[in-house]
């Protein structure tokens, strides 16, 4: 089968999908489906859901709008889970900690942290956000992994807590330099939140679970909203002059420019957190010599990679010229030795150039190293660079 325009157009131009989504017999619809369609959303299958890949403005304009004003994303496909302790918060925090190389116990009340479930060989089962909400933990996981994640947590944590999937709430993300101004018009106290703070704040008589975080590299918020008020709240945000709806296409280019991993592409069950450059997510308490060192799945590999360095590393890549290098592009050293693969790549609308990330053998991972990516049979130069490609604007 060729790669002519017709086959691309017939395929609906969906962005990368997991096999699970492709094989799913029936796609689930978001609660806001009709709103997305009314906004001109082009709906495509993603992680088992019909999701808007873009709206009428298109990926480029949506991306740039989010970088300069504020963008609204419906991320209700993601999994929201409460871990409700059976016998005290500490036992639940320690139980959750046993699944991740991350300091859960040390997370202060009202704060959120990035985490990742590891497997026994040190690979990554999923990446996630979790928050200390005083008497319980609130966890947000990837859509494609949520069923497995809930089973994983239920299997390992049922002794210490109830694992409660939150199915009566949607999740919205409002991202961009004007997100604070837009959201504060509806809920003034969000302005006082700092990056990775969480709070329960009332709107129209219902509790919204708000975190000051996101996955675009911009300042912004993620807001868990009861389904009963989801459409009304989304419309109230869209009425703010700064806010434009943003689809999955721009979500992907925004997170790529921010150097953030997409699970199933940049990280998976074969990549360790150290290879992936996520060592910032492994706090001192869990490292060798720390108060609660080790004791998580895959600790032997992860701790030895922390000490001795991994065999390969996730790196930022800048292709020379204008040709994007996408997922799967093979990377070669100057002498022709294969040294790695691109895991995410495309055009960065804000950096106005093609950008990519991928894994290369550690010996070739130094910033500034010039390698080659093979595109359509031609080896084209690309340079290892630091990430993010676009400076982040988190309000710390």
């Amino acid at each position, binding site marked *: 089968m060729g790669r002519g325009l017709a086959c691309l157009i017939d395929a609906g131009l969906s*962005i990368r999908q997991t096999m699970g989504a492709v094989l799913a017999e029936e796609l689930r619809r978001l609660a806001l489906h009709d709103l997305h369609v009314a906004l001109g959303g082009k709906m495509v299958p993603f992680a088992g859901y019909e999701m808007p890949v873009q709206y009428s403005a298109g990926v480029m304009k949506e991306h740039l709008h989010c970088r300069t004003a504020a963008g609204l994303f419906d991320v209700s496909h993601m999994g929201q889970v409460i871990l409700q302790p059976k016998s005290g918060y500490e036992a639940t925090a320690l139980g959750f900690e046993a699944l991740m190389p991350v300091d859960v116990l040390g997370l202060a009340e009202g704060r959120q942290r990035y985490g990742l479930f590891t497997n026994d060989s040190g690979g990554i089962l999923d990446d996630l956000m979790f928050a200390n909400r005083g008497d319980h933990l609130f966890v947000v996981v990837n859509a494609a992994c949520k069923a497995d994640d809930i089973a994983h947590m239920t299997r390992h944590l049922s002794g210490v807590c109830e694992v409660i999937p939150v199915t009566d709430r949607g999740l919205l993300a409002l991202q961009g330099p004007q997100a604070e101004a837009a959201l504060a018009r509806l809920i003034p106290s969000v302005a006082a939140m700092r990056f990775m703070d969480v709070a329960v704040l009332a709107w129209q008589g219902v509790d919204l679970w708000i975190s000051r975080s996101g996955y675009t590299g911009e300042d912004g918020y993620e807001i868990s909203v009861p389904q009963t008020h989801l459409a009304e709240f989304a419309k109230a945000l869209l009425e703010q002059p700064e806010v434009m709806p943003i689809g999955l296409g721009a979500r992907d280019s925004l997170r790529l420019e921010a150097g953030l991993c997409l699970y199933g592409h940049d990280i998976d069950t074969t990549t360790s957190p150290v290879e992936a450059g996520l060592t910032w997510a492994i706090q001192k308490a869990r490292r060798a010599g720390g108060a609660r060192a080790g004791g998580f799945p895959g600790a032997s590999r992860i701790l030895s990679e922390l000490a001795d360095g991994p065999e390969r590393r996730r790196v930022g890549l800048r292709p020379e010229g204008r040709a994007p290098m996408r997922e799967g592009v093979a990377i070669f050293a100057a002498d022709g030795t294969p040294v790695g693969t691109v895991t995410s790549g495309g055009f960065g609308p804000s950096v106005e150039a093609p950008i990519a990330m991928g894994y290369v053998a550690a010996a070739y991972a130094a910033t500034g190293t010039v390698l080659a990516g093979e595109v359509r049979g031609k080896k084209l130069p690309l340079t290892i660079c630091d990430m993010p490609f676009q400076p982040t604007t988190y309000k710390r």
Partner: protein
Amino acid sequence: MKYTKEHEWLRVEGDLVVVGITEHAATALGDVVFVELPEVETVVAEGDEVVVIESVKAASDILAPLDGEIVEVNQKLVDNPALVNEDPTGAAWFFKVKVDDLSVLDDFMDEDEYNDLIG
């Protein structure tokens, strides 16, 4: 103007056929960020991959709609790929091909037939 099933348009200009992509194709592709054109004097056969076009969403090829020789390419598209979205059926032509017999164009769709195809 004639149209192919691959969403190209064909326009006769003297003894040459000018080739571009339709507005429908340009809209579906989304913002075009990269165009790679063939070399002038390349002899192509129908179905050959002659142009690489990449949007923010995906990479695709434009296939040669007929046999002939590429005699001119639109270098403006390499420098400004966004032109494909701005003026797909005008300024954003891709290449001009010299064919032996212009009557081969009769086999392609006219505008009504193409509009039926894209529904």
